[in-house]
């Protein structure tokens, strides 16, 4: 059975969402280096700066030298398999856990020593939100806001309305998603410079997820930095400017999403009128798959970004009827890290050469149009 062309709508460009000044910034670089090696950031511009954080619980070494830099004013995705150390990293930067070694700086303050001061300027939503069962949602929100100080005028009412939360219900009667909403409303209503969100949407329905994304974008437009740990790739893809991937307690890749895409192969999907077999040997279609179909010859597969340019004359001569070129989806990018062997893989995976052998699958979800 001939395979159907995979029409992948272009993934929403993060350029639309990136803050001004970040848009055209990637310039040229050595393709062979890992993304995190470029653009050494100015410490003063960092909302979060973790360097060489080690943390173990008894014999279990959970963090093995985490390096994580988040520039101010961006939404940073934080990804990694279960148990890779995301929540632990977040607790270190909140000063809840004390790192065995390394430095943790949050908004220019030491995460452990100056925790209280740092907390005046950040808001946190835990991964597992537990509230006081005897208090209503509204009471919890008010209490959290008052203990934090610095609440945006009218924000609580607006957000409560927006997230459709019934604030009169006792917390013990809330579902997981509703408990999360309470913590989210309290955090988003604050005038914090940094939002630390640990899987904040794992219990939200798609409608609420959309509201959440919209509010977070608004906050970024106002200059708020966001650290968003998540397992929802589409969320990260749509929302985040930069991404860090953690595996077994160390960050194996971090950088701008855009740059990462450039490092990975491009998916192409072409229908030509003429048989590619007619091409001379100078054009290597290598790993691409070719099917003959009623409407022509269907060429699909993935190529290096650099190879695309060389292919175009050949394709041109075959008479292109349809052409889809899309950056590799985040899913393809991340699966590699999620599946990679525990050790010695990170360096290789970060470079473009590490992509070989990645399975390509039909993307599980149609890319959503950018709501904004």
């Amino acid at each position, binding site marked *: 059975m001939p395979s159907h062309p995979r029409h992948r709508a272009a993934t929403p460009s993060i350029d639309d969402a990136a803050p001004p000044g970040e848009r055209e910034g990637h310039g040229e670089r050595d393709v062979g280096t890992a993304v995190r090696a470029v653009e050494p950031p100015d410490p003063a511009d960092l909302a979060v700066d973790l360097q060489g954080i080690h943390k173990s619980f008894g014999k279990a070494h959970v963090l093995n030298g985490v390096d994580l830099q988040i520039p101010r004013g961006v939404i940073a995705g934080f990804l990694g398999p279960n148990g890779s150390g995301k929540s632990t990293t977040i*607790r270190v930067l*909140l000063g*809840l*856990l*004390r790192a065995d070694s390394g430095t943790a700086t949050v908004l220019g303050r030491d995460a452990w020593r100056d*925790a*209280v*001061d740092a*907390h*005046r300027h*950040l*808001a*946190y939503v*835990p991964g*597992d*939100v*537990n*509230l*006081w*069962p*005897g*208090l*209503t949602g*509204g*009471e*919890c929100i*008010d*209490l*959290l806001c*008052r*203990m*934090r*100080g610095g609440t945006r005028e009218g924000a609580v009412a607006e957000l409560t309305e927006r997230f459709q939360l019934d*604030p*009169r*219900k*006792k917390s*013990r*009667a809330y579902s997981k998603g509703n408990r999360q909403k309470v*913590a989210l409303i309290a955090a988003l209503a604050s005038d914090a410079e940094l939002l*630390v969100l640990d899987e904040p949407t794992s219990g939200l329905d798609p409608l609420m997820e959309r509201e959440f994304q919209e509010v977070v974008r608004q906050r970024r437009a106002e200059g708020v930095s966001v650290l968003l740990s998540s397992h929802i790739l589409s969320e990260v893809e749509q929302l985040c400017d930069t991404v860090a991937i953690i595996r077994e307690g160390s960050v194996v890749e971090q950088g701008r999403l855009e740059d990462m895409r450039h490092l990975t192969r491009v998916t192409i999907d072409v229908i030509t009128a003429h048989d590619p077999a007619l091409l001379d040997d100078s054009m290597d279609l290598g790993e691409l798959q070719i099917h003959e179909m009623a409407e022509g010859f269907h060429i699909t597969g993935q190529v290096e970004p650099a190879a695309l340019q060389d292919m175009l004359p050949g394709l041109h001569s075959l008479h292109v009827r349809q052409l889809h070129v899309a950056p590799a989806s985040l899913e393809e990018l991340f699966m590699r890290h999620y599946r990679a062997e525990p050790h010695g893989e990170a360096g290789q995976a970060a470079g473009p050469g590490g992509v070989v052998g990645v399975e390509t699958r039909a993307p599980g979800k149609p890319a959503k149009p950018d709501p904004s």
Partner: protein
Amino acid sequence: MTRELQGTATLLKLALKRDRIRLPIWVVAVGLLLAGGGQELAQVFSSAEERQVRATIMGQPSGIFMGGPGYGLDDYTVGAMMANEYTLFIVVAVAIMALQTAVRHTRGEESAGRIELLRSTRVGRHAAPAAATVMLLITATLITLVCAGSMLMLDLPAQDSWVFGAGIGVQVLVFGAVGLLCAQLSSTPRGAMGLGLAVLGVAVVVRGVGDIMELHGSWLSWFSPIAWSMQTRAFVELRWWPLLLAVGLTLLATLAAMSLQSRRDLDAGLLPQRSGWSHAASYLRGPLSLGVRLTRTSNLTWLIALVLLAVTYGSLAPSMRDSFADLPASYQAIMGGSDRAVQGFLDLAMTTLACGAAALAVALASRLHGEETDSRTELVLSLPVARIRWLLSWWALAFVVSAVVLLLSTLVLAATTDAVITVDGVYSGLLLIWATYLPALTLFASLAVLVYALSPRLTVLAWVPVLFVVIVAILGPLLSVPSWVTDLSPFHHVARLASDSAADAAALTWISTVAVLTAALAVAAFRRRDIPRD
């Protein structure tokens, strides 16, 4: 019905595993108390004359309220004495254990979400109450064996010993079934436990008042399940049929619980959930006010319980004086004359109230542990709330609330005593005594906070000092504990009415200093450690 019960064995295995330490400790503790206390009593009151003196006291309203309906007072044998004076004490202990067992294996599991997890697999609707019932049957059997065994060790008649043991064991079933019922009504384990304890409290009072109305029990007594075990007249004129009432009530309550279970949703209670405020009251703005808000219901319950106790003690003061007036002169001399007897009784009342306040202080400080395991501490400490503020807020709450509850119940004790009898300077005297208990209360709060700060998992150890003090204060005089041990108890250094002794000022200063140092140590440890840590 069999489908509804499917998975009971699995849950039972789980329950046995969870209780593998708790159950044996309770059973052994009950056995030791009964056997040890019995040996002591038999030794202290070794002659028939001494026991008859004791019988005179036990025939007074106070004796009846704290003891039993007074069977065998004419010929107060060791057996009659055990049955009359120990039944209430032991029944209250096993009833609390039974309530806990019932609640934790039904409502407790349910609100922890484990039942939901299991019920979606192959566990029937009634499996949890059924497993809890089997646990209760096992517990009741063990308690019966231990209690009967303790009596047999005193060389008491075998048949009476077994009925006495069964009388205690059957109360495990009764209050276990009450616990199952409460677990259906309330939607939280804490609420269910509170409801169960309220039932127990009513049962104690009804039995006491009923028996005071008429020696050997009036019609009112029979409304309390506790009376049924006492009405077996063990070691006096044995009859076993009152235990049938207990079995009947157990069956009824268990069936009611089962039928309620099929009528409600998982995780819901039958008592309605009110919808609350959409905004927090303006006072609610920091850790301390949060603590006040979270504990207000339980604080009120404690206050009511201690005030009731104070009223009971106060109203028993005249009978104390009268009974001592009837006692042989030698006996009076030991207690320092009849006037002194009332004052000694008030001292004892204050100690009892202070034990309650100490337990309240530890219970309040221990809430820190629950806040952490439910990851709310993490949420609070992610706000600009310093660790020292969080810890000391709960410490202060524990101390202040227990002090205020003790103050109010002291005033009530003074007022009720003053209403029924004239004792010189009862207000000022009792208030002075109250003040001398404060360093000890601070110490208990500090110790609890320290244990929590060092290792939240071990927070339950904070109860050890309270237990120690209670045992020394209540059983110390009876068990002839060496004086260096009693000196270790902070309650030993308070002022007393009977001896006109002012407090030991040096000791109180010491206690206060240790309390403050302990709290400082707790702060240092808490600021250093990971959160959450188990």
